[in-house]
């Protein structure tokens, strides 16, 4: 379809366009116009596209979610917020796609460091934003990126100058409160040479209980919110800089989530990503990394699906230059009728000799109706490289179950212990205590363990 009617969203665009930030910036207006055109021509990605073949986002088009122009965060319960807002962090809170100064915590930032909303950044540092926006996320990649560029209402902007090491992490708390709402946000994280920063992206719907359990599935707590999150994060890791990005996605049971992280690493830069995908009816994550000379990246992921959840993880690692190292481990646990997808591509360019790359995807299926589609791809154009990949899809190991039974543990508890242990390997990799405990709580809510001290896990 190439007509302007490819998406009903395009028809609605003019009504919200005047409310979007950056009205006075011609370069941004031009960028948005170009993106709108690209999106209008295609609509949302179709399963006919190879990289969307397992994930059908038709529901988003059907629902026609509406962007929120309302700027208040007043309907966020402070007590509930505490469960997700981490202590010992600077935090930027976005409610329905808009920055809430009232809920955010930004006191005590080192002077040279910028942490602010994207709308603020467009007003205060338009030159810097112009230099980076759209430079890591390629609009032609797929139409979600174009959609995001045209529609984004706000986001997080982080700039850590050279040699600055931030001692506290920065949390981006992305909250959606309403039903049928749409939150489209664009984030930029820049770490100049030798800088170090940790950023935590938390996506959550207000109908999710404090421990991450779907409130709607508990008795007497009402109906789940259907909404759309469409977030794009661009990360620029300077030479010898070190950036860690955590993503915890606990969207509402009926929510659609698209979250793309696009990372450009300079020489000798280091980047680590941890992707915890727990929520949403349909959730898709993109993590694309471009590696320069001798840079290193580590991509970790844990996706847990229940009921009819569909959780898609799409990673791409581009080894563009020699001596870069990449490590990837994604683990999935699918129960009920849930479906998990892992598409991992590692592309080694002709010039990228001495590349060292390992990709692994391990899946546990807990029910006969659960499904996993896993597709690791290695594309190697250099001849002196060390690359490997491995995939498993299976059930729990019967030998392990018997071993636990022979140690007095009943079969059901044994299965629960082993499933938890499988998932917990990824939780254990979290280096930020408060986040670790939050994520652990969510995993424990899925796979309860009795009479255990958390220190033992």
């Amino acid at each position: 379809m190439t007509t302007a009617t490819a998406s009903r969203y395009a028809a609605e665009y003019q009504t919200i366009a005047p409310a979007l930030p950056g009205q006075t910036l011609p370069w941004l207006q031009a960028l948005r116009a170009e993106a709108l055109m690209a999106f209008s021509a295609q609509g949302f990605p179709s399963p006919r596209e190879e990289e969307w073949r397992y994930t059908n986002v038709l529901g988003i088009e059907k629902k026609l979610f509406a962007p929120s122009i309302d700027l208040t965060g007043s309907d966020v319960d402070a007590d509930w917020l505490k469960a997700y807002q981490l202590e010992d962090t600077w935090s930027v809170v976005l409610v329905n796609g808009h920055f809430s100064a009232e809920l955010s915590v930004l006191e005590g930032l080192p002077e040279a460091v910028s942490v602010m909303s994207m709308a603020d950044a467009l007003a205060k540092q338009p030159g810097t934003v112009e230099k980076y926006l759209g430079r890591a996320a390629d609009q032609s990649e797929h139409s979600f990126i174009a959609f995001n560029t045209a529609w984004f209402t706000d986001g997080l902007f982080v700039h850590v100058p050279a040699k600055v090491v931030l001692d506290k992490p920065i949390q981006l708390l992305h909250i959606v409160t309403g039903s049928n709402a749409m939150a489209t946000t664009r984030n930029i994280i820049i770490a100049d040479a030798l800088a170090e920063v940790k950023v935590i992206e938390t996506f959550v719907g207000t109908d999710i209980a404090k421990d991450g359990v779907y409130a709607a599935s508990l008795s007497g707590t009402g109906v789940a919110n259907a909404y759309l999150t469409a977030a794009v994060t661009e990360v620029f890791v300077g030479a010898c800089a070190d950036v860690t990005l955590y993503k915890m996605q606990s969207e509402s049971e009926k929510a659609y989530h698209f979250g793309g992280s696009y990372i450009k690493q300079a020489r000798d830069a280091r980047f680590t990503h941890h992707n915890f995908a727990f929520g949403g009816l349909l959730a898709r994550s993109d993590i694309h990394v471009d590696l320069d000379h001798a840079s290193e990246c580590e991509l970790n992921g844990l996706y847990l699906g229940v009921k009819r959840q569909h959780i898609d993880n799409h990673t791409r690692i581009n080894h563009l230059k020699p001596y870069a190292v990449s490590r990837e481990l994604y683990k999935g646990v699918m129960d009920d009728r849930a479906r998990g997808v892992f598409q991992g591509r590692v592309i080694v360019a002709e010039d990228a000799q001495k590349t060292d790359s390992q990709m692994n995807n391990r899946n546990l299926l807990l029910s006969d109706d659960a499904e996993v589609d896993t597709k690791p791809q290695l594309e190697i154009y250099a001849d002196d490289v060390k690359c490997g990949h491995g995939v498993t899809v299976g059930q729990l190991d019967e030998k392990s179950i018997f071993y636990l039974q022979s140690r007095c543990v009943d079969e059901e508890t044994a299965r629960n212990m082993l499933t938890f242990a499988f998932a917990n390997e990824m939780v254990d990799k979290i280096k930020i205590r408060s986040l670790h405990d939050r994520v652990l709580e969510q995993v424990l809510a899925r796979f309860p363990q009795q009479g255990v001290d958390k220190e033992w896990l």
Partner: protein
Amino acid sequence: MLSIKNLTVNVNDKQILKGINLEIKAGEIHAIMGPNGSGKSTLSHVLSGKGGYTVTGGSATYQGKDLLEMAPEIRAREGVFLAFQYPVEIPGVSNIYLLKAALNSIRKHHGQPEVDAMDFLTLVKDKVRLLEMDEKFLYRAVNEGFSGGEKKRNEILQMAILEPRLCIMDETDSGLDIDALKIVSEGVNSLRSPERAFVMVTHYQRLLDYIKPDKVHVLAHGQIVKSGGADLALELEEKGYSWVEEAEA
């Protein structure tokens, strides 16, 4: 304590145990010896309830109860402990977590309250010292990355803490160097008591240099072909299994 009568067992329609008879009393140590393929491991697996075996006849009565009727975890809670030939590595489950889960399952089975956290730690640390293990082992994942000796020592540690009545030791000496063998044997000897029985399943006699059995049985082709005292093991060591196998034929 354990009375096995004419037990026959199939694996994939092939008869492996062809009528085993064995009487084990509390306080006794029985060694079951035999060449590879004689059915030694099958016997220990069947007694502990591992899947994949079909009991086609006979019985195993443990403390007056039908052992073969019970689920593996019930046998374990009733006091049957299998020390594995190849203890399984369980990444992500710490030793101490498993020990507490196991101990509390036993207590619950016997209608007792859960173990007090402090008492539990004291108990566990005492036993760790007894087996000359590093306390750090407790917080490591069960058997993950352990050497062969460490795994076997870990089995004895579990045994020491769970205090079973009937301990079935499946080829405990395999893969152990002489120092590890001594420590494991000392652990077993310290657990000997008038209320507890041991079944040592082993190919070699050397374990019996350290743990002296009351009775030795030779298993060949799925049957016990000879029984005797501790000196039978020495005789076997000297003459080899062909001696009893031929005598049988």
